[in-house]
């Protein structure tokens, strides 16, 4: 039996050690990475920076958006970078943080980290196995921002909990917290409380992921056998945690009454940490309580969902490589018949005046067809005759979007000039506003009975109002 324990422990440790590798390689290969952003990385400890990034991401996973934006990560890394090297600029900090975030997302392989390790089988034989894991993963938040969240393996690694059950880990931190509080070592107690909070966030993420798996495909999930026991355990655990959080808060408040100096500061900090942890637990408790209802609703919803073919093919080996081995003409014919597979759907829109000017009226007529259209030697393509470049059009669109509910053409032009837009962009913006004149569209346009005051454009100014 002891041999079994030893084998399991060693297998588990060997597997978990794999998660360290990406952090070590951050520092090992920093000489190669420096060139990418032309910043000298020597003054910085990239492993520590990786921890700062992970710490911020885990904390923000407990926020309403459930992840950290790049700006939040950058705010967290800057103090360390500036302290490590007083010559570090904002731009350097941005580049270095980007390099670390990209490394933790495994941008080089563009997929999960795959680290091999040796595994001892029951018969004593050894085989190579793969530990496949993510550290950071980018998502889109409900507001459309890019956010990063951390994988379970990454959180385990960060909290040095090495794959122990979260519930057991929380109990262990609780014991440590009580030990420090009993001896009035408030700073150590605060650190234990902060780790406790991260475990709470991780626990909430774990349960949330289990519940969101229901939404993806309920028929692939063993609800009775796998999800229900998790939910029951979570409910019991939550009840226990809520009681413990309440006791911690009461204890800290009691001590705060007679504390002063550093002790008071640490205790106040701990109170905030426990209140925050309690808020997470309350939120999770509510998710857990409604899990069965969610399961029933998903079962009904997905019963009617069209059964899409689920087989997933390999984009590289099943599509790209065969496509590159085919004659281009064969491929092109097939793509032309199946464009819907490659391009997003298009909603035909009414002609846009400014686009029409750009695409047709201001273009030279097309040249006569060449004798052999497929000839490789047909020469270089003619430069585009479009009146406005894509950059002009985009800048004009952005300018119009930034205008308030009511504005004038003069204001548009003045704002565009102060923002440094080209004459062409301003011309395009002016054409766009004229298109709204007298139309019953999203924006109404009327003459202002005042001349336009602009260095290039003449005529009456327009009053423009966005319709609600």
């Amino acid at each position, binding site marked *: 039996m002891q041999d079994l324990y030893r084998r399991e422990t060693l297998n588990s440790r060997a597997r978990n050690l794999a998660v360290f590798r990406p952090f070590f390689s951050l520092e090992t290969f920093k000489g190669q990475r420096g060139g990418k952003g032309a910043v000298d990385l020597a003054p910085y400890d990239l492993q520590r920076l990786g921890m700062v990034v992970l710490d911020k991401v885990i904390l923000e996973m407990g926020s309403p958006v459930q992840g950290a934006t790049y700006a939040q990560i950058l705010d967290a890394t800057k103090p360390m970078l500036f302290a490590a090297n007083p010559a570090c600029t904002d731009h350097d900090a941005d580049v270095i943080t980007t390099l670390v975030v990209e490394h933790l997302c495994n941008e080089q392989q563009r997929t999960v980290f795959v680290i091999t390790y040796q595994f001892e089988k029951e018969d004593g034989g050894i085989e190579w196995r793969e530990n496949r894991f993510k550290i950071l993963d980018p*998502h889109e938040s409900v507001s459309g921002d890019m956010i990063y969240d951390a994988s379970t393996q990454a959180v385990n690694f960060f909290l040095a909990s090495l794959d122990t059950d979260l519930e057991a880990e929380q109990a262990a931190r609780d014991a440590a917290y009580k030990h420090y509080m009993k001896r009035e070592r408030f700073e150590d107690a605060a650190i234990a409380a902060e780790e406790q909070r991260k475990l709470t966030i991780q626990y909430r993420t774990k349960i949330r992921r289990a519940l969101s798996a229901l939404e993806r495909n309920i028929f692939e999930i063993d609800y009775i056998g796998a999800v229900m026991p998790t939910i029951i355990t979570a409910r019991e655990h939550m009840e226990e945690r809520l009681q413990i959080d309440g006791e911690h808060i009461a204890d800290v408040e009691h001590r705060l009454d007679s504390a002063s100096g550093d002790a008071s500061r640490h205790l106040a900090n701990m109170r905030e940490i426990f209140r925050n942890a309690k808020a997470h637990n309350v939120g999770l408790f509510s998710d857990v309580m409604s899990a069965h209802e969610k399961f029933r609703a998903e079962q009904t919803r997905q019963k*009617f969902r069209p059964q899409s073919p689920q087989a997933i093919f390999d*984009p590289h080996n099943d599509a790209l*490589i065969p496509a590159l081995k085919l004659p281009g003409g064969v491929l092109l014919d097939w793509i032309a018949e199946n464009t819907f597979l490659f391009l997003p759907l298009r909603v035909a829109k009414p002609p846009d005046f400014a686009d029409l000017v750009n695409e047709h009226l201001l273009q030279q007529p097309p040249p006569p067809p060449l004798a052999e259209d497929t000839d490789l030697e047909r020469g270089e393509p003619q430069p585009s005759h479009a009146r406005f470049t894509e950059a002009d059009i985009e800048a004009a669109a952005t300018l119009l979007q930034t205008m308030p509910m009511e504005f004038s053409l003069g204001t548009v032009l003045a704002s565009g000039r102060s923002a440094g837009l080209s004459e062409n962009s301003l011309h395009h913006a002016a054409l766009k506003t004229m298109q709204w004149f007298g139309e019953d569209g999203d924006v109404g346009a009327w003459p202002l009975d005042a001349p336009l005051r602009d260095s290039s454009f003449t005529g009456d100014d327009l009053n423009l109002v966005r319709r609600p």
Partner: protein
Amino acid sequence: MNCSSEEIYRASLLVSYALSPKNRPSAIAEYAELIREYRTIAGMREAASKIAAGLKLELIDEGAEVHGLIARVNPGSLFTPTLQDFRGSRSVEERIGYGLLFFVIAAYVYPNREALAEDASSLGPRIRVSELVEFSRRTCETLRDLVPTEDTTQAHLVLGFEHLLGLREMGKTDREQKNLTYMVRFLVQDFYAAGVFLREGDSLKSGDYIYFARPHYRIQVRTMVREASAFMQSAFERAQEMRRAG
């Protein structure tokens, strides 16, 4: 079908929102409410699915509360894009180049089956135009060393990897459009404009962008790769015959 006229009305509103990936439930309260109804009211769900089916669309609900419903186009739909819409006036070489780059981008973003099968909400790796071009060249150069080729001057008979290797990496001038960098940039910007890619400023290259593929692209690529794989099997045999016949 057992749904009220009000449910049909609201279902059609939902389908109209789903037609643009740029519509986000967080920004449009009505859309968020319609998605909630779609998930909880059987009549509403049935009506929306039927309306979509009539338009030859399929509604996919994967993380809809964040990204909105994903409308997948089926053949013959009014909303089917055409190559003509996309890049109608280009030469054969450019059209073939763009066709191959569809595959290059998909394989770059989802380098293997596991990456493509991931939860749709994961955005996958960052996409930089320069790195995509580099990936394209590297892949084609590897194939050039492995696959025997024959001399031909006709663009439509040139093998895909030779075709891409025949394109310059950069244009000689800013206005030149027949080069890999321009074409890749054009494609990712087109995906961004359609709302299937996100983008952010690139810290490592001032003035440039990095792009991320939204779940809409993942869903599209899943279908594309499956169909392409089936086509490639038979096309490869036909192409061999075509080349033998000259």
